[in-house]
Structure formats: C-alpha cells, structure tokens
C-alpha cells in the first residue's frame, strides 16, 4: 500500500468513532433540551390525559436506554423517524432540504473564492497600495456586518428599491415549476432537463442569498490568501526565481500561489463547514427551504427525531468535507511525491 493510500484509509477509519459519538451525544442532548414534546404536540387545549396519551404514543414514557435501543435499530434500518413539526419523515425532508442548503453554500463559496483569491493575491503583490487598503476595508466589512443585516440590506436595495432582484421567496419564482429532481440542485437539474428558463429563474433566486453568504466568507479567504502569498513572496525560492529572471506572472501564479494553496484549501474546508451553519439566517431572510431553518424550528419544538436527524447529517457532512480536504491536501502537497 502506498503511503498516500494508507493515509487516506487511516483518515476514513478515524471518522467512524466520531460518527458514533455524534449519534450518542445527539440522542442525549436532544433529551436534555428544555421543553416537553408531549405537551407541545398535544395541542392548544390538551388536558393532562391527552398529554399522557401523546407521551405514550411518542414512546417517551419508556426509559432512555429503551428509547436509544429503538433509535439505533431504526437507524440501522434506515428509518430516521417522523418529524412532528412538519409531519414528514425526517429522511425525506433532509433529502429535499440538504441540496437547497448545499446549492446555496457552494454557490456562495464560489462567488466568494472568485472575489477573495484574486483580491488576496493583488493585495499581497501590492502591499500597502490602494488595493491592499480596499481589501482590508472589504474584509473588515465582511466580518463585522451581521449576516442577517447584509441579507436584509441587499433585499432592501436590490429587491425593494430597485426591483432588479426577484422576490425573496425561496428557490424559485412562484410561476416557474421546479425542475424534475435528479441531484436536488435546481440549477443543475434544470440544465439536465434542458430548461433554460428554469435555470435562469433559479439562478436569479440564488444570487442575492449567495452574495450575502459570499460577503461573509470573503474575509477569512482573502486574509488567508494575502498572508500566505506574502509569506511565499518573501521566501527563498521566489527570490531565486526572480534572480533567474522568470516572468512576474510565472512567479506569482506558479511558484507563490501553488505553495500558498495548502493554507488556502484548509481555510476553504473550514469556511464551508462554517457557512453551512451560518446559512440559517440567510435562509430565514430569503425564505430558503434549507436544513438550517428546519433545524431551528425542530429545536424550538423539541422535535427529537428532526433534531437528531439534522445533527447526524451535519456530522456526516463535516466528516466528509474534512476528509475530502485532507485527501486534496495530500494530493496537491508538492512536498509529497505521488509515487513512493
């Protein structure tokens, strides 16, 4: 086995205990939430008797150990339970909502990378020039403006005042039908179905929320790019390349950027996981039917099955993202050869 493959298998194996711990923790934590789901779901006028009836039918009169056993058996059978707040099976709901959140996050991240990486490079290349100051202002703004404020502000300007953006009512305009589901990403699905109108409709809905998220993610990426590039530009190999008379472009993009890619990618992984969590506020402002909103509503109602399902999905996703980033890092690290 090559060391790289060995490393990757090792990382995969490490993920298993973290998932197990998450399952146990999410089970215990949801049950420690204040609030009593039996009372909540028994309804407005429920008396003691109907609350007890509710508790029995939810299985909450059993011991925790018994409940946990049932939960594990159901999980193994692929049954994540029914969410009481929405009345739908948790798996159905997560499968429908996760792509919405992912599409938004990925699109936001792409926007953010497209702006932050060139900005960071330019700022490092022209240290203390106007572009460096501009980068500093943008980064400070991105970090210090609360995400719901940016969202509402953009809605106010581009939808309410100017009328350029479509109404912030979710993934697609009321008039346009959602594309036949394949991946759950409306932009991709509409392209697969060859429906350009749907594609542009869903893209238009994406722009404002993605820009809100992007502005938020801009700061860490731009800053990391700038400092990594500054470090690389000061290094011996860049000095040598300069002395050898290589072109400025070649030095910047090949030698400096490639060596800065490691910290940038690590930051990207972190930012992505972070954005998935920060999503919830954007989802609220833009009525985006994503997992964040789902989780908040479930938490408010002490909806055990939904909260557990959400935590588990997020944990799996984090493990997956970290794993992918680790693998990419091993693959692109110039210090590690490909064939040992």
């Amino acid at each position, binding site marked *: 086995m090559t060391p790289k493959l060995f490393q990757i298998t090792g990382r995969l194996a490490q993920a298993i205990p973290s998932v197990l711990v998450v399952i146990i923790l999410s089970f215990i934590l949801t049950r420690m*939430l*204040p*609030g*009593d789901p039996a*009372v*909540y*779901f*028994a*309804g*407005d*006028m*429920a*008396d*003691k*008797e*109907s*609350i007890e009836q*509710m508790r029995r*039918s*939810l*299985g909450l009169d*059993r011991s925790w150990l018994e*409940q946990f056993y*049932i939960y594990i058996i*159901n999980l193994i059978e692929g*049954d994540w339970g*029914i969410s*009481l*707040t*929405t*009345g*739908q*099976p948790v798996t*159905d*709901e997560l499968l*429908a909502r996760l792509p919405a959140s992912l599409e938004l996050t990925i699109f936001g991240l792409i926007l953010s990378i497209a702006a932050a990486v060139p900005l960071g490079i330019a700022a490092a290349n022209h240290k203390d020039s106007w572009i460096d100051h501009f980068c500093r202002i943008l980064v400070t703004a991105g970090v210090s403006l609360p995400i719901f404020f940016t969202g*509402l502000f953009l*809605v*106010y300007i581009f*939808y*309410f005042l100017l*009328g350029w953006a479509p*109404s*912030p*009512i*979710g993934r697609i305009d*009321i*008039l*346009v*039908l959602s594309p036949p589901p394949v991946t759950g990403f409306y932009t991709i699905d509409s392209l697969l179905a060859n429906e350009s109108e749907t594609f542009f409709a869903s893209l238009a809905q994406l722009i404002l929320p993605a820009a809100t998220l992007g502005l938020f993610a801009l700061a860490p990426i731009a800053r990391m790019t700038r400092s990594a590039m500054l470090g690389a530009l000061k290094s011996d190999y860049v000095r040598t390349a300069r002395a050898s008379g290589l072109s400025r472009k070649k030095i910047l993009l090949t030698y400096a950027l490639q060596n800065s890619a490691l910290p940038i990618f690590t930051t990207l992984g972190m930012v992505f996981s972070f954005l998935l969590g920060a999503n919830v506020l954007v989802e*609220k*402002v*833009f*009525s985006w*039917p994503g997992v964040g*909103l789902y989780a908040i509503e479930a*938490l*408010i*109602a002490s909806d055990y*099955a939904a909260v557990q399902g959400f935590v588990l999905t997020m944990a799996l996703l984090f493990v997956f993202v970290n794993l992918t980033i680790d693998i990419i890092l091993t693959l692109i690290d110039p210090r590690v050869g490909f064939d040992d």
Partner: protein
Amino acid sequence: MQRRKFLKTLGVASGASLIPFLKYVPAEASGNNNTLIVVSGSGINSLDLHRKGTNRPSYQVTVNIYDRLVRFGVKELEDGSLAYDSTKIEPEVAESWVVSNDGRSLTFKINPDAIFWDGTPVTAYDVKWSFDRAVSLGGFPAVQMKAGSMTSPEQFVVIDEMTFRVDTPKSSKLTLPDLAVPIPFIINSKVAKNYATDDDPWSTEYLHKNPAGSGAFKIVRWDPGQQFIYERNDNWLLGPKPGVKRVIVREIPSASTRRALTERGDADLYMNVAAKDAKEFKSEGKVTVSGAPIDNCLHVLALNLDYKPYDNIKVRQAIAYALPYEDIISAAAYGRGKPMFGGSEKIPTNITWPQPFPYSTNLEKAKELLAEAGLKNGFETTLSFNLGLADWQEPTSLLIQESLGKIGIKVKLNKIPGANWRTAALVEKRLPMHLENFGGWLNYPDYYFFWAYKNGHLFNSSNYKNTKVENLVDDTMHMSTDDPQYETNVKEMIAIAFEDVPRIPLYQPFLDSAMQKNVNGYASWFHRQLDCRSITKS
C-alpha cells in the same frame, strides 16, 4: 415497540402520495384576479386536523377544504372590516335542524347538494364516522368536542341516509356552536375506510396527506416547508361560489420579507400581521389593513396565588393599579389593542365580555394598598414571558418592570423559550407572575371563565380557586343565554374577576391582515386562519 411501530407505519404511508397533485403552477397564476397569493409566517404540517401534533396554521386547510354541518355567519364592523358573527349560525352540510323539547337532541337534515369531490353524496354515515373519529382519536379534537358535551360515539345517531342526530347528556348552548368550529369536519368515509388498518382504524396516515372532503377548495399541491396550493371546487353548492380559482399560500419565515413582498405588491394577502407592521401599513396607506379584536381573548398579567404575596388580594389589586395600561397599548400593542382598563363600575352593568376592568394607573392608590398588605417597602419578584411571543410580551414586560419599580416592587425578567412555555405556565403552573393570552373559540363569558378561572383548568395559570366561581361556571356553562338567571350569573362572575384580579387584563388584541387594495371579502375568524371562500380579487 409501540413507538417503533408508530413511526414505521407512518413512514410507509407517507412515502406514497395518492392524490393527483398538481405538477406545475399554470402560467396564468399571478397578476390576474383568479389567483390569490398569500404569505404566511409558518407552514402547515398536516392536512388532517384530527391527527396528533397538527399545528395551528394547518387549521386553515380544514376550514377551506372540508365542510361542517353548520357554520358561523359574517358581520360588518364599524370600520367596514368583516368578522365572523358568533351569534349567527348558518346551514352548511345540514340544510335544517330541529332541537328536541328537552334540548338534549339535535336532528339535522342533510342537504342533497352536499357532494364529495368524488361525486358521491354526503350522508349521515359520513357525518357519524367523522364525528366518531373526532371524539375517539383523543388529544385536542376530543377536548374541543367535549366542550360541546360530545364525548362518545353513542351520541351520534344515523336515523336514515340523510338524517343525523346528536344526543347530549344535558341541554347545552355550546353544542350547536361547537359544531361550527373547525374540529367536526366531514370526511368522505367511504374513501377513508379503504385505508383503515387494525393499527390505524381512523385512517390517520392516509388523511394526513390525502384529504377526502366536500369543501369549496381542494389541495392540489403541498411542498412541505415551502407552499401549498388550493384550487376551487367548482361543484361546491353549499354557499356562494368562491371569488378566486386558486390560492397559493407561500411560507415566508422572515416578517421583514413578508412585509417587503406585500409592499411591493408581489403578495396579495399577508395573514396575521404583527401589530407594529399593521400600524405602519395603516399609516402608509398603500395596502388595506383589515382587523378585528379577537373575540373572547385577552392579553393578561397573571398572578399565581400559590406564590406569596400574590395570595393577598390587596397585593393583586395594588398591581392592577400600578400597571402602565396606556403605555402598553401604544408601545407594545402599537394601538392594535382594545383598552380593558378604566371601567367605571365595580359591579358590571352588562354582560359584555371582555369589558374594561375598574382599574387604571394610579400609583398612590397602589402604594396605599401595598402598605395595607404590610408590604410598604415592596418586594422582589420574577415576571416570566414567552419568547415565542416576544413581539408584544417583551416590551410589555419591560414597561411593567419599570412601572412596578415605582411602587417598590423589584421585578426580574425571565424569558422562557416557546417549547418550555406551555409546560411551565399552563401544565405545571409554576410561574409567580407572567403574561398570558388565552382566547376561547366559543364566544361566551362563562366559556372563558371555564378555562381561565376554574381551578386546575389549563389556562388558569394563576392557580386561582374560588368555590363561588366554580359553582357559577358549572351552573352557567350549559345554560341558555335566554335564561333570566344567565345574566345574573355572568355579572356575578365578572364582578368576582374585577374584585379578585388573579388575571389583570391589559388589552384585547387584534387579528390583523394586510392585503392589496383589489382584494375584498376578507373576514377575521375566531380560529385566526384564512377562510378563502369569501375572498374576491378585482
């Protein structure tokens, strides 16, 4: 293994959707007067109101897609807004009814024009099956049916195909109006029974996603968490033909976004507008605000008699004199509340309910009463409120805190998350001082007293106990309003509430909705949901 089975069976049933849901939204949807676009803050979670855990927004589905034996009429208010009329009961599926001499049986003749969506007629068998279901499934439906003295299937009798009888153990004025609330809706039992199983004899899993009714609208599409769409049932003959063909109810979680959509004209109707937005919509004048005070509903400050010093009537009255009523109405209710203070008589002269209590802000009087109670230097206490209702409860609490500070009562605020609220306030009743907002569906003062002043009852979060009230409520609850004793009893109840003030009313809240100027026919309902049948768009 009960829970497992419960979850599993549900999982199987909800996987398959059996009604032909609309695959697309026809292109003519918006911008014309056939389609109404409604924005709402919270989504529905079931199409079946009898199911366990069905949330409040889902009640509107039942109202629009199912019929009941009878319904309430609609009246016009002074400002031109429309509201339901609790005193007027009109036929719906029942074309007529007679009450037996002893008042214990109601016999309904079913209208032959009542037709289910599948074309079969509504029969007494369907009514019986639906009513049996409402009393048998437990939970909220059973509690609401009980208010109308209906607790067991034996009370529902099929006389023949088109005649149906309800028997009650005693004659009660609440039975007939209780048949007009959303709960006793009529299901197509022939369809529903096909999906009944031994574990689920009432087809709750099927009806959760697949309605089977006769109502003026059908549900053609439901995307949980996003929207649902009603389409008019053109064969409905039980009332005037609804003015719009299609209603799209879109879930928009952020209130700011709902407001922007309404102001921009992208939404036709915004249900349940917060008081602040309603006030601003009204002053801007771009959209119509239609609202009415919610019948039989009060926002109150409740004092828990199980905690000292609230067991002392003088302390309760002192607090009633120390509340900043006017500030609360202007700064917390934004003027969208009917004053319930400053009444002139200690003994009520009429039975209007709710009516102003004989207290108004008078700090001197409050200090005097506190001194009489031996608490000249005040005391410390905790005021709890529900974070889920923070829009009015937070400013109200702050105003109360400030005002009580002036008579030496140091108030600490305690915010309780929505999920925990019901347990703490209503079930365990362990909050010394708190805000409460009960409203009764059936518009009778004695019905309010039944829930909010009888010891041990859910909304009596004050642990108030008064044998006189207990007896009065028991005697009056089922009494006809024509009974000469009725007025005497209700006045006596109200007088006791005035004197004892375990619940100090702050104001009667409004239910406000905002709509474009071309939307007409909107009416406020006691169930606080949208009845699409009366809406027209020009």
